[in-house]
């Protein structure tokens, strides 16, 4: 019984993933990490809708995208990239930083 229920859960998760609407490519925003700084440091996104941040780490060392305001935390190894989904956000400013180089890697998402 328990194995059957477990399989049902896994199946349900798959159905949920397929059925849910994906974020459109037009809602993709690119953020770059270079010399332990985010570029751009302020990124404008539309308020009230889900958007996708593509974070490219051009440095050789890893960086952790960290934002309490956005409730997101993601380690991006050197030379790699990661997708981070955020929103829908209320209009306002949401700070984020590079946890490993917080002295320089600071940025802000502006939802308008």
């Amino acid at each position, binding site marked *: 019984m*328990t194995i059957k*229920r477990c399989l049902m859960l*896994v199946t349900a998760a798959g159905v*949920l*993933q397929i059925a849910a609407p994906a974020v459109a490519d037009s809602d993709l925003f690119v953020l770059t990490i270079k010399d332990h700084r985010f570029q751009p440091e302020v990124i404008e996104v539309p308020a009230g809708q889900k958007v996708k941040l593509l974070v490219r780490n051009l440095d050789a060392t*890893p960086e952790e995208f960290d934002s*309490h305001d956005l409730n997101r935390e993601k380690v991006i190894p050197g030379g790699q990239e990661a997708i981070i989904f955020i929103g829908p956000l209320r209009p306002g400013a949401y700070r984020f930083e590079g*946890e490993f180089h917080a002295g320089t890697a600071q940025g802000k998402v502006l939802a308008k």
Partner: protein
Amino acid sequence: MSRWLRNARRRIICLSAAVAVPLLAGAFTPAAADFKVLSPIVTKGEFEIESAGSVTRGRHRDGEEHQSYTTSLGYTFTDFWQAELEGELSQEPDEGLKYAATNFENIFQILPQGEYWLDLGLLAEYSRAKRAGANDAVEFGPLLQKQFGDFLTTLNVTLEKQIGSRSEAGTEIGYGFQARYRWWPGLEPGIEVFGDMGEITHLKAADRQAHRAGPVLFGTLRLGNGGKIKYEAGYLIGLTRNTPDGTVKFLLEYEVAF
């Protein structure tokens, strides 16, 4: 094959292995409740050392105090799999503190965080009992999370099955719920509710179930070297006559990502 299909296949294979290995390993005891609500979100490359505990006082089936403490080491190996090895000490009435169990906990993040309406993960845990007469156990269930504005809510539903020659036949169902206000990193006030409802096919009468709820403080303190200290402290009040009057819970964790 699409990236989603490849990822889903890898996740299902890992999950199946985590459930199947303990089942094949043979004998199995339910772990003491650690009053911890688990997030479905994992961060690849994160290492953590955690210490948690709970002390219950007052009205209880045996009218005595119970204590349980755990210490664990965890690592997140992939974008979707975190594993934790945990040692558990507990004190039963008229006994000293004894090593009770070794737990192997796995969290599988099923959906990318924030992509869908709900974040979903799965828990699969094997608990190897050390106390004489106790049974090993497997525990698994969904971990659900949803943010509503500044409030982050998380629900764990767990199914626990004892394994071994003296094990109980049924599968127990329980839950843990947490709602926290994301005020500032160092302090997030919230509430937690935990319950054990009995066997999934024969739920206990409501007043014989164990439910407790109360305020909990959460927080994260940054250490400047990429490391973080996380804490939880709370007091849970018994809501039924089969639940202790009060439970003090705490958790302290050091985590660092590589």
